[in-house]
């Protein structure tokens, strides 16, 4: 297809059939035959269109008639040319518009795709944010609850500490007085029985106050009242000490196997770390029946210092496992446990940027992993 503003040949403007028809009609009108040729043979007249000579009209006619035929031919070409120009322009324009439309369409599709991806990304980001917010909310809720519990605990600990101090001190003094009183009184069977009973009562009260003092101490650690010194900690040494303490507490040699690897010293609060180790070990010990062992492993893996405390004790159900870190949650009888052991242990480990993981199956035992990053 030619451009609308190209120059046209005779065939562009008029089909050969129409050219022949036109010549035939001219011939009939004038009574002489016409011939169209591409060159001037001397008796021809030029047919012009838009300043171009498109052909030569040859006829045996007087000049005036010959010229009139040429003008008539040119007039036909003029109108044919107008149509051809308009049609070609229309074609050019349509083609250009279509091309433009296609480009716009492609651009729209590209941008649609872009926005689709953007929407997808946004949805993902929103979901991600929602997850983060939910988690943060949960943590906030938990930490607010813990803070409230901590404040309560700190208040109680503070209030109890002083009376428990003088009660235990008084009980000791009372015991001494009782000795003196016993010595100064005559010995008879009834008095001996009475004093024995009295001593037993005072000892029992004493051990009761000790237990109260221990619970208060747990509460203090839990509520972060104590600010023990920050130092380089040898975890293996802390484990060994904690094991000894647990043995002493239970007045027996426990079946504890130590498998301690080589550990780097890590910065931390040794007293608190001991406390958390003690609490976990204490739980392990209490879970054991008459049989079963406790295994303590320490090691460094992927820049994480890990202390595993495994027991072959009673284990826990999933319901219990889900609540073990809840402050004051306990499965033991009232008075036998504060329900703070694992909460305290976890808070301590978290304060060292670590975590506690617990695996347990009812009746098969429990494995508690204290994990603290080395750097």
């Amino acid at each position, binding site marked *: 297809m030619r451009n609308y503003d190209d*120059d046209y040949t005779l065939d562009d403007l008029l089909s050969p059939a129409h050219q022949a028809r036109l010549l035939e009609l001219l011939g009939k009108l004038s009574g002489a035959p016409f011939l169209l040729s591409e060159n001037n043979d001397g008796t021809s007249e030029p047919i012009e269109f*838009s*300043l171009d000579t498109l052909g030569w009209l040859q006829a045996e006619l007087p000049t005036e008639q010959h010229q009139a035929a040429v003008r008539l031919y040119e007039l036909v070409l003029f109108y044919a040319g*107008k149509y051809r*120009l308009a049609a070609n*322009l229309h074609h050019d*324009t349509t083609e*250009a518009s279509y091309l433009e439309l296609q480009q716009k369409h492609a651009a729209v599709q590209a941008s649609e795709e872009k926005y689709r991806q953007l929407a997808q990304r946004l949805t993902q980001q929103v979901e991600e944010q929602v997850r983060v917010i939910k988690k943060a909310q949960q943590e906030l809720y938990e930490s607010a609850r813990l803070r409230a519990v901590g404040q309560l605990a700190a208040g109680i600990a503070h209030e109890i500490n002083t009376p428990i101090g003088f009660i235990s001190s008084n009980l000791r003094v009372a015991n001494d007085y009782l000795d003196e009183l016993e010595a100064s009184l005559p010995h008879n069977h009834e008095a001996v029985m009475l004093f024995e009973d009295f001593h037993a009562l005072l000892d029992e009260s004493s051990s009761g106050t000790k237990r109260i003092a221990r619970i208060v101490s747990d509460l203090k650690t839990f509520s972060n009242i104590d600010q023990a010194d920050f130092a380089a900690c040898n975890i293996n040494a802390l484990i060994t000490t904690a094991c000894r303490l647990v043995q002493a507490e239970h007045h027996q040699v426990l079946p504890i196997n130590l498998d301690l690897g080589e550990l780097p010293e890590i910065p931390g609060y040794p007293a608190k770390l001991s406390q958390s180790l003690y609490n976990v070990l204490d739980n392990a010990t209490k879970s054991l029946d008459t049989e079963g062992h406790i295994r303590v492993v320490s090691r460094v893996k992927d820049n994480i210092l890990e202390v595993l405390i495994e027991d072959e004790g009673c284990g826990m159900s999933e319901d219990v496992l889900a609540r073990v870190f809840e402050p004051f949650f306990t499965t033991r009888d009232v008075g036998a446990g504060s329900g703070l052991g694992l909460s305290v242990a976890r808070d301590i480990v978290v304060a060292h940027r670590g975590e506690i993981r617990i695996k347990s199956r009812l009746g098969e035992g429990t494995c508690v992993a204290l994990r603290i990053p080395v750097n």
Partner: protein
Amino acid sequence: MATYSESTNKLTLKIVYYGPALSGKTTNLLQLHTLLKPQRKGEVMVLETRNDRTLFFDMLPIGLHSEGGLDLRLKIYTVPGQVQHDSTRKAVLSRADGVIFVADSQLSQQDNNAFAFDNLASNLQKLGMDIERLPLTVQFNKRDRLDAIEEHNLQVRWSSTPWAPLTLASALNGQGVVESFRQLLGRLYPAVDAEFSLARDYAIDSQTFMRNLSAVGGLSNA
């Protein structure tokens, strides 16, 4: 874009009358046809109109045969001015060698002038041409109208553009039409000469170019 055909030794140039609707582009062309006595002049083709408004384009071919044997043609087009015919306008504008922008002098039409001029610039850009480099004449037509903006104001407003001075016309009365056309020829010649060496190879200097393409009336040698 001027096209040269070696086989026929023919050089075709394209001039386009551009401008807002009803500013008088077709009138300019028809007056050129009436007034000009170039060496060669064809018929005006008024392609199609509806209510006197151009739908496609009008075209006037003129030309000259140089002593050097060059067949030089000038095809003068008008575009449809109405906003909705933009794709036609762009098609007609493509490969133009020079543009005469016909603005309307009436105060009320200044926004349309500005809009059409922006449209010219953007269409040229889409066609890969630069309005700053294209030979361009700006004509303010309809000087016969009562509310025509004062000439001094117009000239001052356009003085800092590459297209100053403006030409003024009253195309309906045949005034200023040829002058505008000549200004464009004057701006067109250097560009064509630079590309086709008209003076050197075809003995067409600036004067010959002007005289043979824009002679008026009986003064064919003016």
